[in-house]
């Protein structure tokens, strides 16, 4: 029997099982996705598939509140020794893009299932139209690789060879997939031994009741945090720069309603389902883990003692209407949902920033470019394909300190590769890898700086792919008087002949001698920069984090020969104080300009209108409406623009435009 004075013992044993599985998988997996990127998870679940424990050392951060139940139910029968699996984003909404393969194993004790253990690995490739199975340009799920609905992968401890042969036939790096699948199955078998030891120690009933106790405990902690927030309705929107290649902005909108110890996250007003692969499949699940990742961060930030399991999702209810970017219908492509998920997290952070401004940081950089190079080694004439460093940006200014430079917040799980290792293996030469001055949003607490990476290539037709590019148009926002941060960019030959500014473009071909420059966004600033101590600004200048010009223009601190001119600073700050903005958020000129046409009211009208159309019309009409809105004749009126679109395309179904 587990009671409150020994609940921590069970919590530790469950965590030990999760950590043990994670280390076993990490040790035995084959692919760099597992070994370097740590794009994997493992978990202990209860007997219905709700996650009860996850590792804290290794792996990705997205699934502590996951529920395997829908996928579990899609398999008819479970026997001891079985392992089931799926990678289909539309069956059970467990795998959220095709490269993610989830496995789960029922743990039997005396003929009854006492719990499940499970986990996922991101496979290097699952087949489909492009290597690695991921591209923004893909338009339907069938292009994104082979999909396996939930089915039995292992029976009586033996793999179903038919399934393995089908997978081997359809993917580009079958050995890596097989190695990782076996490693994950091995980790689940380790987990089974740990679970059975717990059943022996606590008794089957004590163990199962204890799992309920752990979820109740997490729920209690989450409710406690919500109770500490003022009741209210907090509305926020954030934009991905593009809804596809060279596309229009994609709005995500959240109405966060906090009542007592509960919260509703209503995503109505977010973009329609997109024609690119940026959709996030959530299956109308009111507690889908991808909708709540931002919430995990918020809860953990506000109480680092919180137990991470699905119990903490109970006070939250999500609404994501069907046929939208956050709840697409089959067969929408979903491969690059990670880009949208980053926006989804900053959306949640922004809404909570409105609820508890004094306790939340400004926006993190929110876009981590994953860089790959394919080039030729001039010494061997061999083609080399390699992952280079992820280019990650800083955290947002915090209530008590500056944002972390060069990484942090919701990107802190990423790792880099030493320059010396990359230069030894890949025929490129780095010219710069470090922090980008003046990139953090100015504030009482400055946003974390962006990272900049530059390298030179030497062979013709070198292909540079940069996945997850965003925030090169709309800036990470500042809060409470803090300013927005600098945007990201992707440039070939910056400041020299042959310069090409590529923004969010995710692939480029480089010529011999070309210099490739990629920088991330910075983190947003928090609090008015004029309140920052001049000495701290001076130190930022001395450290090269802020330039003398920016110190003067943004912070109002006049520095001459490395010394603060106190008098000039006081005078300048008095002048600048007249113009400080008073809004909660500072978005920067790009979003302000965009929202002059696309006001919240106009965008709401747009999403309402699109929601009334059949799903297959929505993205098409959105694109046409964006073009029509740019025409002066429509006067920035969505209804007029829609009429214009229907004039050009009479096939567009008529929509009764509801009054607001």
């Amino acid at each position, binding site marked *: 029997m587990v009671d409150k004075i020994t609940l921590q013992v069970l919590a530790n*044993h469950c965590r030990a099982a999760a950590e043990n599985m*994670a280390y076993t998988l990490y040790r035995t997996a084959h692919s760099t996705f597992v*070994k370097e990127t740590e794009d994997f998870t493992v978990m202990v679940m209860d007997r219905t598939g709700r996650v009860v424990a996850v590792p804290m050392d290794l792996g990705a951060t997205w699934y502590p509140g996951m529920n395997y139940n829908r996928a579990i139910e899609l398999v008819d029968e479970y026997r001891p020794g079985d392992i089931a699996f799926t990678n289909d984003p539309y069956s059970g909404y467990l795998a959220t893009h095709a490269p993610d393969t989830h496995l789960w194993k029922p743990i039997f004790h005396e003929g009854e299932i006492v719990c499940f253990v499970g986990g996922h690995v991101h496979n290097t490739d699952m087949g489909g139209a492009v290597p690695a199975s991921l591209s923004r340009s893909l338009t339907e799920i069938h292009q994104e690789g082979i999909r396996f609905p939930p089915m039995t992968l292992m029976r009586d401890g033996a793999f179903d060879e038919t399934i393995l042969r089908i997978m081997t036939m359809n993917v580009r790096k079958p050995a890596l997939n097989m190695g990782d699948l076996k490693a994950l199955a091995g980790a689940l078998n380790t987990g089974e031994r740990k679970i059975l030891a717990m059943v022996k120690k606590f008794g089957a009933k004590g163990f199962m009741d204890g799992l309920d106790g752990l979820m109740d405990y997490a729920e209690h902690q989450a409710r406690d945090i919500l109770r500490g927030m003022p009741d209210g309705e907090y509305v926020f929107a954030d934009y991905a720069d593009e809804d596809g290649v060279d596309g229009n902005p994609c709005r995500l909108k959240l109405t966060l309603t906090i009542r007592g110890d509960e919260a509703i996250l209503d995503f109505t007003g977010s973009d329609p389902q997109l024609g690119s692969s940026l959709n996030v499949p959530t299956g109308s699940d009111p507690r889908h883990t991808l909708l709540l990742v931002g919430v995990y961060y918020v809860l953990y930030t506000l109480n680092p*003692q919180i137990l991470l399991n699905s119990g903490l999702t109970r006070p939250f209810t999500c609404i994501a209407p069907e046929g939208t970017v956050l709840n697409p219908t089959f067969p929408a492509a979903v491969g690059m949902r990670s880009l949208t998920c980053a926006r989804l997290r900053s959306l949640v952070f922004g809404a909570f920033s409105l609820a508890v401004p004094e306790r939340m940081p400004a926006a993190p950089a929110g876009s981590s470019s994953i860089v790959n190079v394919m080039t030729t080694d001039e010494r061997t004439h061999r083609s080399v394909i390699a992952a280079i460093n992820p280019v990650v940006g800083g955290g947002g200014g915090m209530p008590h300190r500056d944002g972390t430079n060069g*990484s942090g917040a*919701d990107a802190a*799980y990423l*790792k880099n590769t030493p320059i010396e290792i990359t230069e030894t293996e890949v025929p490129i030469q780095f010219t710069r890898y470090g922090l980008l001055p003046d990139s953090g949003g100015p504030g009482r607490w400055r946003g974390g700086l962006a990272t900049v990476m530059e390298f030179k290539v030497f062979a013709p037709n070198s292909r540079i792919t940069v996945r997850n590019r965003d925030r090169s148009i709309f800036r990470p926002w500042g809060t409470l008087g803090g300013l927005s941060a600098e945007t990201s960019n992707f440039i070939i030959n910056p400041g020299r002949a042959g310069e090409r500014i590529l923004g969010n473009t995710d692939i480029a071909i480089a010529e011999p001698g070309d210099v490739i420059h990629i920088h991330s966004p910075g983190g947003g600033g928090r609090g008015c920069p004029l309140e920052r101590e001049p000495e701290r600004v001076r130190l930022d200048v001395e450290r090269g984090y802020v330039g003398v010009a920016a110190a003067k223009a943004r912070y109002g601190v006049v520095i001459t020969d490395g010394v603060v001119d106190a008098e000039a600073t006081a005078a300048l700050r008095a002048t600048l104080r007249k113009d400080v903005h008073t809004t909660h958020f500072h978005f920067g000129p790009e979003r302000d300009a965009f929202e002059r046409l696309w006001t919240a009211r106009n965008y709401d009208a747009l999403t309402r209108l699109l929601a009334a159309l059949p799903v297959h019309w929505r993205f098409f009409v959105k694109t046409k409406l964006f073009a029509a809105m740019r025409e002066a004749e429509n006067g920035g009126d969505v209804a007029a623009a829609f009429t214009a679109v229907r004039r050009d395309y009479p096939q567009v179904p008529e929509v009764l435009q509801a009054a607001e």
Partner: protein
Amino acid sequence: MSWRIGVDIGGTFIDFCALETGTDRVETIKVLTTPDEPGKELLDGLHLLQQRHGIAPGEVVSFVHGTTVGINTIIQRKGSRLALITTAGFEDVIELARLRMPEMYSLFCARPEQLIPRDRIYGVRQRQLASGEIAEPLDTDELAAAVAAIRAKGVDGVIVSFLHAYRNGAHEAQARALIAKLAPELFVFTTSEVWPVIREYERTTTAILNGYVHPRVAGYLTALEAALGSRGVPAAPMLTKSNGGIMNAPTGKRACVNMLLSGTASGVIGAAWLAEQAGVGNVLTLDIGGTSADLALIIDGQPQFGTGEVVGDFPLFLPSVSVTSIGSGGGSIAWADDFGVLKVGPESAGSTPGPACYGRGGTRATVTDAMAASGFLGHTPLAYDQIGMDRARADAVIGDLSAKLGQTPQATAEAIIAVAVSEMFVEVNKLVARYGVDLHDFTLMPFGGAGPMLGCFLARELGIPRVLVPHRPGVVSALGGLIADVKGDFIQTVFAAAVPDALPLLREALARLKADGLAWIRQDQGFDGPVVETLSADMRYHGQSFEIEVPLDEAWLHDGDLAAMTAAFHSQHLAIYDFNDVGAEVQIVNLRLVVSGATPRPRPAPAADQPAAMATPARRIEVWLDGATREVDLHHRDALRNGHRFSGPAVVAQQDTTICIPEGFDAEVDARLNLHLILRSEA
């Protein structure tokens, strides 16, 4: 008569272990540390050794010292003020580190404050390529300007770190010479001299740690030499190293970074030797002090080595005995959160004020208080009479906490022990999963002041069937220093595919390593006994991002037997990761050489064989154990003789610790007076 003395400084105590040459008689003492007067405790200890055991300073022919002065300098951030010179364009390498941060679910996550802030980091134009080829000469004007700026800032020393300097240290050496000329008052360390290994962040961090602790460590060692000299100790002091070996003081003053983990490493060395004496091959060591617990695996008698052990906030990329440290010890504080869930740690009462029952001002319930309130402690003077045990204070603080939890004091004390043990349970699970070992084949060896208190409880939780408590569990680290070998590590990055073209490079690297190693042990260490060279390579499959160390036979390099090298790698890979890929390209990243010179090992005479007999308990005591009050046997360790047997539940009290033995364990004393505790199988 002559004596060899091993000394280990911990947070609360400094431990002495003295070994008489010839007779192998062992004497031990503990002295409270004197943080305000570093070094005084050493002289106190020497004095006490003479007083109690008649060991005259003039008879001390060998003095081996493990010290926390280096690691404390880092933890307390009291090191030197440094500047860093890097390749231009790469000034932020130490701030970015390897990006990934602990606490990855927190929006407030941050990296620890750097030891060198960005305003004392200067980029200088120069460039070497991965091949070692110079692509751009060192810009000496820029360097001179940087040195001028550094001098203006007022620093103690400079670290020089250029890209690919592990391959070609010429620019670093050139920079060092120029700095010596322009700023002779500054000390300089280059990455290629401290630890010339590929991976810029790791190599730079290692050099910075070295420079950061250098002035304090050098000062401490100079004072130590003087103190020993003043007492008439003829022995030149030796220092224990993170790699489990020892080096002399002059080397320690420059190569300071090598001694950062000296105490924890020599604990494992001592444990390995004790295990060998007891005939045990696979051991999980559990060294629990007041604030932390150190866990390590000994597999087939061999301590495990690794790189990346954490020192303070920083990873240490030198070969070190692999030890997992967790912030959970006898002083960890128990508390209840607002949901009524009992937690233990991470806050600790440390050595000051310490547990409430020590009567030194502690007012909150700790793990040690839970043990005391359960009746396990206080049956013999502790720590050689230097600590009193006040059961009433333990009862009071446990009582307070139990009132908050709405539980009985007994249930609360038992739950505190269970939670503390479960925290260690998590760490052991990570450790065994990392090594892929099965604990059923292992023996748990608890030592340190609090290890034997909790050892059996942890063994029971882990399903480890055997526990081995050494005769003197309180001084295992001090003993480890006494038996450690003189040992130096040498590395050369080669980064080549395992193909015949690489052979000249490998042979050249080997020759350099051998020359450096031999010079170190013969000239620097003055060791004139037989030297053992152990060759290995860090190898990986092409495309992997990490290496594994593979023992090599030198003849393979001479004979060009690459097949043997790659075969050794494939089988090592299989052993560690459960798979290999015999068709894949294999790379040799680093060549490593360990040179060591053996220290004479004591051969203490086994205790006379005695007929097996049941041990006679000193008395019966009342304890709370496994949910009930029980009367159990109390044994005094000094009374336990070779062949004695008894069964749990029981408590064994001794000067340096208390051993708690729950029901189900059978105890037996061996000829070395080790206590073997065997969990009866439940079948």
